[in-house]
């Protein structure tokens, strides 16, 4: 993929903003996109709870958290991967494969307590395969993960066919859909917060996290400055696979239905949310809070529109437009700002 996306490929030299003398400007722009998305999210939540009937209820809150659960969890490692300039499109298929395996193993009579770690492990193994092909053999991640997208989904169907396994124990399925003490806070929110904290700290407060940005900005330079580029990327894919495996388990329990087609198409929603959150597809830029806001924005918008009886078709258009705009708007603002500054300089020169 990499190459497909390299910014320098877009012949038009937006390479400009890699220049050191513009570093400050980029930084401010970056923070501004983060804040734009945060403000936008807050605004959508506020407007929706005032104007949309039944939006601001605690039950709707639970529904929303359950709807955003898979996207937000997979987005955590995906953010890191995209920051290093790679991509993982196989996550939804990994989810499907673990869901299938979960159903199959359950039918074999294994206990659910055994199945869950096995499923997370299966997800991690899927990640190992991706990681090996990409870092070990040096293949482009876009092509590899499109391949494993088909492969893992295919294997999911091989394992479980078109059937569904449904008789999972109530104390597990009920936990996923339930709330703490029957109150307003869904059980899975604990999981989301805990994982988001772990990933947030790793990405923003550790040398490992900083090295991701270095890799994304210039992998060669990162390599020469002692960062183990291949190894770092490899573990990111393993982590991404493991999280996708965990989400496969949660998905299966939430719908109490293990199926091979679970989560199909989710990879696009995750990538859309991450990009919307201000992560650059070229790598090197982006923050986790922005991504979290992006996920919440997408989910809240869809939820509110559905409550207002806007059709699912329109949701498609909104999602697609947001995705394009999330990259287009910052580009336009930069161009306009650049233009304006140049004109100001010219005017100043003329006045002199």
């Amino acid at each position, binding site marked *: 993929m990499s190459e497909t996306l390299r910014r320098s490929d877009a012949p038009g030299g937006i390479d400009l903003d890699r220049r050191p003398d513009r570093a400050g400007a980029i930084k401010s722009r970056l923070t501004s996109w983060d804040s734009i998305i945060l403000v936008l999210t807050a605004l959508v939540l506020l407007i929706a709870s005032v104007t949309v009937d039944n939006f601001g209820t605690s039950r709707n809150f639970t529904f929303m958290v359950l709807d955003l659960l898979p996207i937000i969890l997979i987005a955590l490692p995906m953010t890191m991967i995209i920051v290093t300039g790679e991509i993982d499109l196989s996550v939804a298929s990994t989810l499907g494969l673990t869901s299938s395996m979960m159903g199959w193993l359950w039918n074999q009579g294994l206990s659910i307590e055994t199945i869950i770690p096995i499923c997370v492990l299966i997800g991690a193994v899927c990640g190992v395969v991706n990681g090996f092909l990409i870092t*070990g053999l040096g293949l482009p991640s876009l092509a590899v993960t499109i391949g494993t997208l088909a492969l893992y989904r295919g294997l999911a169907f091989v394992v479980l066919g078109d*059937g*569904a396994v449904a008789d999972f124990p109530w104390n597990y399925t009920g936990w996923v859909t339930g709330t703490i003490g029957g109150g307003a806070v869904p059980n899975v929110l604990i999981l989301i917060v805990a994982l988001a904290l772990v990933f947030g700290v790793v990405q923003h407060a550790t040398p490992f996290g900083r090295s991701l940005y270095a890799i994304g900005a210039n992998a060669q330079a990162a390599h020469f400055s002692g960062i183990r580029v291949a190894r770092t990327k490899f573990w990111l894919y393993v982590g991404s696979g493991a999280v996708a495996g965990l989400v496969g388990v949660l998905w299966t329990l939430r719908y*109490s239905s293990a199926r091979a087609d679970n989560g199909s198409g989710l990879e696009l929603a995750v990538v859309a949310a991450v990009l919307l959150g201000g992560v650059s597809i070229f790598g090197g830029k982006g923050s986790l809070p922005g991504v979290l806001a992006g996920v919440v924005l997408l989910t809240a918008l869809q939820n509110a529109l559905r409550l207002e009886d806007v059709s699912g078709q329109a949701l498609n258009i909104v999602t697609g437009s947001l995705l394009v705009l999330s990259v287009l708007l910052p580009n336009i603002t930069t161009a306009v700002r650049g233009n304006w500054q140049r004109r100001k300089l010219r005017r100043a020169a003329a006045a002199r």
Partner: protein
Amino acid sequence: MEYAVLRSPRTLLSVGSAALLVIGLSACGGTTKDSASNDTAAGGQASAAADPNAAIKEGLKIAFLPKQLNNPYSDVETGGGKVAVDELKGEYKLVGPNDASASSQVSYINTLIQQQQDVIVVAANDPNAVCPSLNQARAAKIKVITFDSDASKDCRDAFINQATTQGIGESLAKMALEQAGADGGEIAVLSATPNATNQNSWIDVMKKELAKPDYAKLKLVKVAYGNDDDQKSFQEAQGLLQSYPNLKVIVAPTTVGIAAAARYISSSSYKGKVAVTGLGLPNQMREYVKDGTVAKFALWNPADIGYLAAFAGAAMASGQITGAPGEKFKAGKLGEYTIGADGEIVLGPPTEFTKANIDQFNF
């Protein structure tokens, strides 16, 4: 580039063994399929007594949630539902996902709960995946009627069955015999998905019928699956004819399959040699009935399913019925219906379509 990963087998080994340890520890004891089989989700609501004389309430909010939008078959079903809701002076609503996936319906059910509908009429994409949400709906005093494709019976109040399984299976076998002619011959089934509940039970009945002496000359050579996907069904029909050159009849008990098979036959050299029959929509099949590819096929009237479902839902929301077997209610132009075992309401026998009558139907 460095192959750092390959050089660190120790890391991999340690991670692997740690994971195995976790599994090993958790493997002793725990919840398995056998031990869990007894505790099912507790859902639903206490059923009140039915009052057969209760008047149908006006202004009931009745929402239809088909398997997916933009499917011509469910459009006809929900269209019938709209007619009924208008007759009942209720508020009609139609929502649904674009894809027939198991999980996408859940968000819509949740939305309908939030909107406090009175009745949800749903065709379940997965009998279990929608269950927790449907039970939440019932806990919120919403009546749940399933149609077309049932949910688990402990998470809905009634199910509108298009026709009895027995009736459809017999009718399929009978049509196959008619098409094969006096000499009989090889027949094949082109079904939906390998696990489609409806199709499988019909095929089972059909097989039992074929075992009877009347059908001795028919030989069922293969059951193929087109996954209710147009192209896949098309390719499977091709495959059947390549594998079984002496095939006389393709029986497709699914609207997608029969249309794809008919389209393939009508444009190939097999036209006139291989007959197609099964369950199909008149509008999709008209072309092939008129060009002689298809002589006869059958279907219940889908509009009546939606119509009946709306009336059943309204009767239930008004307290006329609770879903218990033996209760009776009136369904407008369709007359009186009785609830059968497991809350099933059977619409009636399927209609057969031929060149003579097909122009009378528009769905």
